[in-house]
């Protein structure tokens, strides 16, 4: 059975069209999910609003299920998917920088673009900061590249690290997501971390 032409989707006009459609859909659903609102996003870090958590975890489970079943049905060649190699320490540091930026600004790179689309000045100032960061990083890249490629672990995946079948990991993540959604809902309803209480 023919599988989805992943390689073609990354090249030429077809690639550009695929990127445009995927990007537009991504932005649309982020905005519809309320993720263009900095107040809502920063509510995640104060445990007041779990929208980000729900959207991201839903996306993870959806992607896992989609990849597994489309691959099983012969519609997707998993070996053609690029798995970003793990560089443990640099990625931990990068994650921390990303998190600090996210909680400080209230938006991440994707949601800042969504916020701009809805006319938010928050988003515009965040994007200006992102561009400045990219420029500074590019200009100082040579100083860091030794660190950037340190602690290389290769193409690490959860099933490989745990030595478990993909399907079992898939079920475990789904159950964890469901339990987390229920827990997040209860926490929100309890109002323990709401602004009013504080």
């Amino acid at each position: 059975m023919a599988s989805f032409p992943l390689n073609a989707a990354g090249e030429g006009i077809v690639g550009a069209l695929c990127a445009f459609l995927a990007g537009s859909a991504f932005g649309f659903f982020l905005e519809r999910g309320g993720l263009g609102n900095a107040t809502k996003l920063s509510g995640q870090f104060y445990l007041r609003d779990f929208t980000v958590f729900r959207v991201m975890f839903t996306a993870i489970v959806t992607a896992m299920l989609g990849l597994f079943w489309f691959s099983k049905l012969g519609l997707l060649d998993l070996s053609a998917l690029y798995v970003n190699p793990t560089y443990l320490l640099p990625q931990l540091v990068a994650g921390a920088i990303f998190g600090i930026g996210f909680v400080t600004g209230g938006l991440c790179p994707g949601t800042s673009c969504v916020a701009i689309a809805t006319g938010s000045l928050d988003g515009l100032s965040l994007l200006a900061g992102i561009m400045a960061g990219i420029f500074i990083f590019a200009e100082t890249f040579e100083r860091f590249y030794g660190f950037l490629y340190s602690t290389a672990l290769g193409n690490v995946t959860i099933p490989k690290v745990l030595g478990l079948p993909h399907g079992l990991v898939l079920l475990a993540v789904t159950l964890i997501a469901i339990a987390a959604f229920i827990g997040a809902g209860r926490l929100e309803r309890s109002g323990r971390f709401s602004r009013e209480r504080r």
Partner: protein
Amino acid sequence: MAVPAAGRPRIQIVLLFAALALSIPAAFMADPAGSGPDPTEAGIDWSGVENVEARGLARWIMDRKPDLLIVDARSAADYEAYHIPRAINVSAADSATIRLDEGVTMVICGSDSRSAIALCKALERRGESRAIVLRGGMRAWIDDVLFPNLTVLTGADAGNKEAISRMSLYFGGTPKTGELRRGSGGGRYIREGC
């Protein structure tokens, strides 16, 4: 997205059951093809099949190993797109015409190991048992010889980075060094060797 106190929206319940319905059977199924480090290699019985690693074959070519015959068993289109230096394209149908002279080392290269093993077995049935399979096929050649990732080498390969890097450049590849490269970088497919 606040959940109404009166009850969860029906869509959430539907999605929850859909996720469970899709993930519970998955837990009892085999891994999907392509999910491993090299899925085409999983479960291959190598007993009785002589084989050579991609870097081993590369070394033979670099050393000008005499009487080396590399048979590319892929389609003509794949062969035209890229093939190992010195390889000749022989389709499965044409393989019946292969007759080896004494002393010739024949390496069969497929897109992966399985296709090459199939041809190797077919030759064996006709009494030609001197074929060697390129382990991992073109996938291994591309990953290990042309574009090796020097930042994730392990074991003996980790101490052999320079030779692996030279090998990659010799065949027109680019080793992934994790180092900054300036310039146009336009020589990706320009062979320095044969």
